[in-house]
Every structure is written in C-alpha cells, then in structure tokens.
C-alpha cells in the first residue's frame, strides 16, 4: 500500500515536471546569453490557450501543440525586438509580455472554457497493463531535451559562443560573434519552448483550459533557472522537485487531510522559495556576467 503510494507520487512528479522543464531549459539558454524574460508566464498561457483551442477545432493534438509553441515563438519576437534591437529594459518588457499573454490568452480561450480537447496520446513506460508511468511523448522529450541542451551548451562550439555572449558581449563581438544574432536566436528558442510547455500543460496534463491556468509556472521556471545555476541537467532535479510538491499537495487533498487546501496550494511556492534560500548563496558567481544588462553595441552610433 505504502509502496503504491510512493510509486504514484513519483509517477505524478515526472508528469508535472515536464511542462515546467520546457520553459526552464529555454530560459537557461536565454539567460546564458544575458537575457532575463519575466514574460514566460504570458508565453506559456499563449501556448496553452492557442493549442487547446486548435485541438478542439482541428481534433489533432500534435498540430495544435506545435502551432501553440509557434505562437509562443512569435510572441517572444516582440521581446526580442524590444530588448535586442531597441535596448529596452528587460524586466519591463518581460512584464509587459506577461500582461499581453494574460490578456490575449483569456480572450482567445474564453469560448473553450469547460470544453474537451483531443488530448495527447499516452505511452506506458512499464508495459500496457500498468496505470502508472503513462506519459505522452512530450514528457519523454522534455527530459531528452534537457540533456541535449546541456550537450549543446557545454560541449559544442555554438554553446561556447552563446555563453560568451552572456558573459561579455563586447568580448564576444571582438571575437567575431554577433551578440544581437545570438540573442535573437535564443529568444526564438525561449518563446518556442515556453509555448510548448504551456501547450503540453493544457493538452497533456490538465486537459482543460481556464484563465490563468499556468498559476505562476512561468515565474517558478525563472526561480528554477537560478536553482539550477544555469545548468539544464540540474533543471531536471528542480522540475521534478516542484512536480513532486504539486502532486503531494493533490494527493493530500484527495485523501481529505485536515489541512486547508489553501495551505496545501502554497506548498510548491514555499518549497521553491525555500530551495532558493538554501541554494542561493554563491549563486552570484555562477550567473552569466552580463545578465539583465543592456548591450548598446561596440560601434559608435551616429549622434
């Protein structure tokens, strides 16, 4: 009995980790180029609502998921344009993007509240009879992606260039790398993965749409980036930890334990804060040096 409970907990933790892992891995890459994006929450919501609406309309969850991710990418081009081309404040741009995603997703998703969408098909990990560890393909891909992102960042030439831009754009520029181009490419990846995370949440995990359904996952992803110290492999640990917190809270609620559901709902956020607290010291030395700073370019602009 107890073993069963533990297995279902692990099984759920992995399921809830996946939609968080996508934006976290994306944001690791983005922040490695020196960009903080507080708009992840908005991008996830956009991905979730568009993919859900499309899945209801088209009946094909795969097309819906990828179009949802594409919408995330398109929306993040606004961020990329403002931050890279116009040197706008990253924090303000990110928050504006959050409002944008919040509003647009609510408007788009309004007719689909309470509807059923074609969900992503599940593939059991432990043979066809087991009810546990049944995931859609995107869950498996999420973990694979985190590993690939690690290889990309730390074992390829492109990854090195990307990190160089994040550490010191002027030096990278001197070495023949275009910081603007690297950041634009990274922003596309951030948008696509955040949208994909939202889409997977809507079509693979909750299988419903409601306004603001990501419930702060975009912000938690940013916290996990700090927790993971800008390392995609450690992001897996963070995502599973958060997923485990969510599932534990759901299980306790289902068992009718005498704690208010409001307090149980707090658990994932408190855990995230607590984990950051324990890991927070010394983080500053691992953070990309140019994180959050505006890069004005090295050449003199006409004045």
């Amino acid at each position, binding site marked *: 009995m107890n073993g069963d409970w533990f297995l279902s907990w692990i099984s759920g933790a992995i399921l809830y980790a996946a939609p968080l892992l996508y934006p976290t891995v994306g944001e690791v890459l983005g922040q490695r180029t020196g960009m903080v994006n507080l708009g992840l929450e908005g991008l996830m919501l956009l991905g979730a609502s568009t993919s859900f609406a499309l899945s209801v309309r088209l009946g094909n969850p795969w097309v819906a998921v990828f179009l949802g991710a594409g919408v995330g990418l398109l929306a993040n081009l606004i961020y990329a344009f403002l931050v890279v081309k116009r040197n706008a*404040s990253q924090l303000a741009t990110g928050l504006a993007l959050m409002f944008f995603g919040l509003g647009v997703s609510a408007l788009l998703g309004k007719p689909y509240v309470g509807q059923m969408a074609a969900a992503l098909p599940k593939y059991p990990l432990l043979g066809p009879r087991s009810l546990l560890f049944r995931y859609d393909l995107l869950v498996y891909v999420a973990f694979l992606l985190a590993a690939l992102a690690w290889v990309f960042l730390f074992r390829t030439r492109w990854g090195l260039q990307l990190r160089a831009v994040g550490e010191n754009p002027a030096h990278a520029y001197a070495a023949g790398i275009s910081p603007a181009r690297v950041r634009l490419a990274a922003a596309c990846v951030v948008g696509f993965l955040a949208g994909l995370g939202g889409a997977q949440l809507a079509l693979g995990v909750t299988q419903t749409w409601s306004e603001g359904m990501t419930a702060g996952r975009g912000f938690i992803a940013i916290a996990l980036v700090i927790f993971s110290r800008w390392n995609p492999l450690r992001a897996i640990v963070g995502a599973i930890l958060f997923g485990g917190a969510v599932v534990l809270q759901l299980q306790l609620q289902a068992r009718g334990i005498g704690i208010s559901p409001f307090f149980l709902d707090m658990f994932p956020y408190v855990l995230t*804060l607590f984990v*950051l607290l324990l890991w927070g010291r010394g983080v500053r030395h691992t953070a990309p040096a140019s994180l959050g700073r505006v890069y004005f370019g090295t050449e003199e602009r006409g004045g």
Partner: protein
Amino acid sequence: MDKNRLAAGSFRLLLHVVLIVGVFALFLWANGKDPIQAVRDTVRINLLQWRGLWGVMVRMAPLLLTALAAAFPFRAGLINVGGEGQFFLGALLGTWAALNVPGLPQWITVPIVLLAGAVGGGLWGWIPGLLRARGWVNETISTLLLNYLAPLIVGYFVFGPWRAPELAIYPQTPEFPDVARLPALGTTRLHVGFFIGLLFLFAYWFFIHKTRWGLEMRSVGGNPEASRRLGVPVSRWVVLAMVLGGAMAGLAGIAEVAAVHYRLKLAISPGYGFMGFLVNWLAGSNPVGIVLMSFVVALIASGGFTLQITQRIPYAAVNVLLALILFVVLAKPASGILAKSLARRWKA
C-alpha cells in the same frame, strides 16, 4: 531649435497614441466588436461625466500607492515586483483590525485600520528585503513568488474562519462597521484613499530629495560599495526600502477594501500591484509622472469595465491594451521616461 524638438516629440507621441488605438481597434474588430463605438463609449462615460471621472480617480487611488511600492525600493536599487502580494496582505491585516476594533469613533478607527494594512504590506516586503540584504535570494524572484502566496492566505480566511455566515454563497467576510469605512468626498465615490495617495507621493518626494535618509537610500541605489565604505548601513536600507514599499502597497490594499468593497474577498484587485510597478517604471519614479501615468492606466482600466458592460468585451482586453501601450513606449529608444519628460514640460 528647442521648440522644434518639442514639436517633433509631441508629434511622435501623438503618432504613437494613434498607432496603439489603431492596433487595438483592429484587435476589437477582429473579435467582432465595433471599435469606433467602443472608443466613443469610453470617452463619453469616463471622461465627459462627473460620475465617470470620479470613478477613474477612485481607480487611481490604489495605483498611486502601488506605484510608490515600486518607487521606494527602486531608489535603493531594488526591483519590487511584489506589489500584488503586498496589496493582498495589507487588505488582510487591515480587515482583521476593522472587524475587531471595539466601538471607537471613526477618526480613531480608520487610522488604526490603515496602519494595520500598512503593517501587513510592510511585512510582505520585509521578507524579500531580508532575503536580499543577507544575499540569499534575489528580491525580484522572491517578490514574484510571494505574489502567489498572499491571495492563498486571504483565500484561507475568506473561505474559512472569517466567512460571513449570512451570505453562504459568496466567500467573503462580514461588512465593515461604519466606523471602519473610509469616508468619501461629499456625495461622490471619491474616497480619502486618493488623497492619502497624493499625500504619500509628496512625502516620498520630500523624503527622497530633502532628507539625509533619502540621500543615503539613493546612495545605496547608486553605488552600494562606495556607500558601505562611507559608513552607510547598506543592508538596513535594503530592508527598510522594501518594508516602506510593501507598506505603501498594503495601504493601497486596505484602502481599496475599506472604501470600495467594505468587505474582504478574493476579487479585490484586477492586478493593481503589477500595474503600479509599470506606472512607476513609465514615470521614472518621478512623483508628478506617477500621477499622470496613474491617470492614464486608471482610465484604461475604467474603459475596460465600461466596454465589458456596453460591448460585452471581456475585461482581459484591458491587459492587451496596456501591453500594447507598453510595447510602443518600450520601442522608443531610451524609453521609460516618457512621463518624466511630460512632467518637465508641465513645469515649463
């Protein structure tokens, strides 16, 4: 020469406004609404009628204070994105005071209630301030996370121990006694909270520019290392700036509850905390700019509610319009000081 530049600047500003309204109109049209009627309704109801204008000012009240919630920490080099959570915790503690004061006259009760609200918000600012001062957690991320905790705490009390027995359907507290309500101006809806906001804007300006403490706080924001070597207690200012900011947002929260809703419930904020952050950023932390930008944002929010009724446009459209405006402002090179330059023109 300078006059030419001013003219060019005004022209560009006008162009931007037209651009934003155009994009938004297109967006409404795509959603099957009548954009021209929408703009006409917004202007007619919210600007050309006294009642509507008072309504806009009622919405300005929380924005003035939540903008200050970002402004105080900003001067100390901190990013407080937690106005939303501090707003809720202020409302919570203020409500506790309002429902538990023994029969005192209004002129004592109201300050007690407001003070409790400020303490609640200040507490919610103190946590990230302390975490930052010790170098443990960055205040941007901790305030964002605390935003999600505060409404859950309010939810616990509103659904649980404080739930009004007479209205079983709606989870909300009993009504505030008359002595705990903020008085309004004459027969209008404009309440004292608006003037408290203006008062604190003045106090903010005085504190930052005319006192030694303000100078110390700004020096912490400018160069913490140099300040430390000159003997400025840097971490104490970091904590204090966050507490002051939190207190402002808490005050906004309890003022909103005690003057508009008269009872605590979950639906007390359409995102006032976040909006205040953006108001402060648009205004470049300048007090006059905060008043101007609060007015603009309050007008947009009021317009959103108007359109919800007249055209059945969901309130979420307001967030889209707000975001579009911000995008256009951000796209201006050297952006963010739009209101500051407006304020300068105002003085000239």
